[in-house]
């Protein structure tokens, strides 16, 4: 962020003055007035609820009989490690993340390269149409894909059975195949990632490619030695978003699994389990614990990712 400097050009010297000029005070008053919606909202809808949530995690709060709320120490937190449903939720979430996080980078990257190609005719139409399904509400896409992945009449199994000598799986109803089914469905939501990666590709200076061409680099070499390093910040950003997204995954799992994680717990994602604990079993103390644990996990993941980034993420212009 090199641009920060000219935003607050006189900031330092201005603050060092003992008494603020009338003009500066006026600026502060106006500025605070403009910031006040956010400051109020941050306190009321973020900071205070966060703290209260943390306090809840040490209680057995249940909204049906709030009078019986007691502090129960670390009971909820220790329960995280012994709760069999929690283990299941972990398994489901990690399995999903392992399959779909890499694909959520590779697929939009492939699309971005395609719609950025100088050889593609009518690029803008392709971009718009590849983005289009991202607009479709998740409930609707679960319905449509449910038809596509219907085990008998769905187009997917018809295609599989046409191409291969096997029977297609019962996608939504099969404990093993439901996660791949959700992953396939996820391809429909790659529009944002594609657009961001496309912008990344377009930001690579053409001189670099020209220089590499002069040196005799092939297309693949140019892609792996120029394009990928140059867009690694964008890939990093997407990686972070989709990892965090795995923990927040809810709607698709809720609809396919009838809100219970069907078939047989195979869609009991972390966030779905949190919802069940807090809003079905009304065990809001433990629900708050699950929420805070999620926050801690996401925070650790973010920190770990940021630590690894200087090994593989290249920021042009240093810093």
């Amino acid at each position: 962020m090199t641009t920060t400097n000219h935003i607050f050009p006189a900031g330092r010297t201005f603050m060092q003055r003992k008494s603020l000029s009338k003009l500066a005070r006026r600026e502060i008053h106006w500025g605070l007035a403009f910031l006040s919606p956010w400051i109020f909202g941050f306190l009321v809808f973020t900071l205070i609820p966060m703290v209260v949530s943390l306090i809840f995690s040490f209680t057995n709060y249940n909204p049906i009989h709030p009078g019986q709320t007691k502090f129960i120490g670390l009971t909820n937190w220790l329960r995280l490690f012994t709760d069999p449903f929690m283990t299941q939720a972990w398994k489901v979430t990690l399995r999903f993340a392992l399959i779909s996080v890499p694909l959520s980078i590779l697929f939009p990257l492939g699309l971005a390269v395609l719609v950025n190609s100088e050889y593609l005719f009518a690029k803008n139409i392709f971009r718009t149409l590849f983005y289009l399904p991202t607009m479709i509400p998740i409930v609707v896409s679960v319905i449509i894909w449910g038809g596509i992945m219907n085990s008998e009449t769905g187009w997917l199994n018809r295609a599989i059975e046409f191409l291969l000598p096997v029977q297609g799986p019962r996608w939504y109803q099969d404990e093993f195949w439901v996660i791949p089914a959700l992953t396939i469905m996820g391809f429909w939501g790659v529009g944002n990632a594609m657009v961001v990666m496309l912008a990344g590709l377009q930001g690579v200076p053409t001189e670099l490619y020209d220089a590499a061409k002069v040196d005799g680099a092939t297309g693949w070499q140019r892609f792996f030695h120029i394009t990928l390093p140059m867009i690694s910040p964008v890939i990093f950003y997407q990686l972070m978003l989709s990892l965090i997204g795995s923990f927040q995954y809810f709607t698709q799992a809720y609809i396919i699994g009838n809100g219970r994680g069907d078939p047989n717990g195979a869609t009991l994602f972390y966030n779905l389990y949190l919802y069940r604990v807090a809003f079905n079993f009304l065990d809001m103390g433990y629900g708050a614990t699950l929420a805070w644990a999620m926050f801690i996990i996401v925070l650790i993941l973010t920190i770990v990712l940021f630590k690894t980034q200087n090994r593989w993420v290249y920021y042009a212009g240093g810093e």
Partner: protein
Amino acid sequence: MKTQSASRAPFTWSSKRALRKLTATALVTLLGLTVLTIFLAPLAYMTFTSLKTQKQIADSTILPVSPATYTYQGRNYPILNVPTEKGMQQLALVKAGREASDFVDPENPEAGLIHWVGRWRVLEPVYVWDPTFDNFPASWKQINLGRLFRNTLIIAILGTIGTLLSSIVVAYGFSRFRIPGIEIMFIILIATIILPRQVTLIPTYIFFRAIGWGGTWWPLIIPHFFANAYNVFLLRQYFRAIPRDLDEAAMIDGATPLQTLLYVIIPQSVPAITAVGLFHFFFAWNDFFEPLIYLQGREDLYTISIGMTQFANIFNTQPGLATAAAMMTIALPVLMFFLAQRAFMQGIVITGVEK
């Protein structure tokens, strides 16, 4: 390309290059079309299914078609593809027999019955395009789609107004004012992007219930009047790119900061403001979790996302209705997206690339 050696003599260097470019364009575009066709096939599936009757769905043809029939001497007979000495003919089966049958040619019924030796059961029926539009009004009525639309629109529009008002004002505050601690506040704002909303969920839920907002739309609207990190970030980036000379000129003319915002900054930022408005509109249109918890049991207040789950459950028995409702549900967002895609995509780029 391997083709270059073959095309040596008649081409000059530049036309050879043009040919190569043409080949590459054809190949890449073909690849693009293939991927796109597979990618959008579910939309075709949705469209075709919404135009089918239950019987056509049971027949499981790809298109909304029905077996063709022909009325001969007052009765309906199925039309089949019959291989004859004149090639494949489309004939109506009038008298079916085990080893031989009698047909009539619908093009030329006066010629009378055609005797054909062979098993008619192995013949393919002729299908004709036969869509039905009954699924649209039927599904509209079944889940009261009119009410769902109205509810969702009210929530989405009020929330969009709130988001725009608050995010513009706050972004202006972050982009133009020297306030002690503003940099720390901005870092806090950005940090809330990675904060999972579940962390604040339970106390917020209890709070809204306690003030009597459980089972109302208020929890889905009011919080958006207090700005959100993504939108503030996007608008601030945009506002910062507007030259300061412009607002300084306005200030010298005696404009207050509010007037500067209204008459200088906002008119210059229409694309970014459009993007923010659209982001929120689509968010509200698609949001599932919050309506699910706040509108539980209030069917009259349901939004489209929640109302549509009914169809997710009965999909296997009524795919025609479910896909018809799906088509009507996505029509508005898709139309809006086509109209405003430029501003929309720019917005994504600003939030996604320029961290």
